[in-house]
């Protein structure tokens, strides 16, 4: 039986320019990275751009990566930060359009609100950091240890970040989503 190389060996090989090793790593991690980008941006094309950019930047900076650590948290962190930057540049773009006299589209314009689960609409109105912990924990089912690596925080802080994010989501639902509130709490 042939032993398959582990991730750190694959990273070491990719670092030396072994494209096959890198492609294997990309295949292993592309789904959660793309899904996180999609959850954060709500648009498949934007999510594709961001995930692709995350893989390219990770590859370009692979020499800075500690290969004894898992790759996925690093990829997720880069994708999340790129998504945050993308949202920021989009909001600047819309502000500029507003200045030019055009009307800003509604929040989450890439999505048809009628197709979107109301609870996701509420989550999408939270700040980026709150969305990020909710998506990692409940949607992508990332462990607390991996969340700590992705968010660069102590493991013990993960629970409190999640608790705060859920608190803010609850406040938002109570004030702005009466139907959802009735469904959840009655």
């Amino acid at each position, binding site marked *: 039986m042939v032993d398959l190389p582990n991730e750190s060996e694959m990273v070491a090989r*990719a*670092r030396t*320019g072994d*494209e096959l090793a*890198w*492609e*294997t790593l*990309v*295949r292993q991690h*592309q*789904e959660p990275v*793309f*899904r996180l980008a*999609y959850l954060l941006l709500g648009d*498949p094309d934007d*999510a*594709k751009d961001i*995930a*692709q950019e995350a*893989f*390219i*930047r*990770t*590859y*370009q*900076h*692979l*020499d*800075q*990566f500690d290969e004894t650590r898992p790759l996925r948290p690093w990829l997720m962190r*880069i994708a999340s*930060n*790129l998504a*945050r*930057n993308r949202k*920021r540049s989009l909001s600047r773009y819309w502000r500029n359009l507003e200045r030019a006299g055009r009307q800003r589209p509604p929040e989450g314009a890439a999505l048809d609100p009628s197709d979107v*689960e109301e*609870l*996701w609409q509420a*989550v999408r109105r939270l700040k*980026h*950091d709150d969305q990020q912990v*909710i998506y990692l924990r*409940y*949607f992508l*089912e990332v462990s607390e240890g991996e969340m700590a690596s992705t968010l660069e925080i102590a493991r013990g802080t993960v629970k409190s970040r999640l*608790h705060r994010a*859920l*608190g803010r*989501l*609850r406040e938002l*639902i109570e004030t702005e989503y009466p139907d959802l509130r009735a469904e*959840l*709490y009655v």
Partner: protein
Amino acid sequence: MNEEERLEGRLKKLATNFKYPRTPNFASDLGKRDARPGRFDWRLALPIAAVIVAVVVVLAVPPVRAALVEVFGLGSVEIVLGEPTPTVERVEISLPGETTLESAREVSVVPILLPPRLGSPDQVFVLSRVGNTVVLAWEDEGIALYVIPPGPLVQKLSPENVEQTLVNGRPAIWTSGDHFLELVENDPDQLVFVTEHVLVWTEDDVTYRLETNLPLIDAILIAESLE
């Protein structure tokens, strides 16, 4: 079951039934862009070659040294290579002019933007002798961000390594290795010993200088996130 548990249950149900778009195959995209690790950016080849030639020719001619220094400048930061190391003790000095973020924003002629990932800085300084350059420091993360308005010149003396990179698609400089940062020319009291990596980039006419021990990719992401 309390409210938080009910909300968690609802989120899990949403996640289970969530319809994601099909994940593209990014592995097959490799090679469509020039992404090899550490690959040299050939768009920069000619300017760099010109600089190397200029260094070789000009180093022996002191009167034209100023012109050489300009070649290595980015925004308000000059990088002086080959400069003799100043003979001062290698200790970090504390920056003068500690203030609050609100006060710094009042005196600064340029907007003071923050990286959302780091939040509000732990310490803020206004360097009045350097054109009200604002320095934001995050202690736990070991990060300092210099926001340098147009005009004042900050010199970085003899970093060990200098690399070219991109921030928001524009040229930027990444240095590593111990070096001195000369805030005011020929004033040893304004000399800061830096052990961290430094990313220097410009946005409009503002020069940013980020000191950090994070890898370059993280420094770039922080730089690109300022808002």
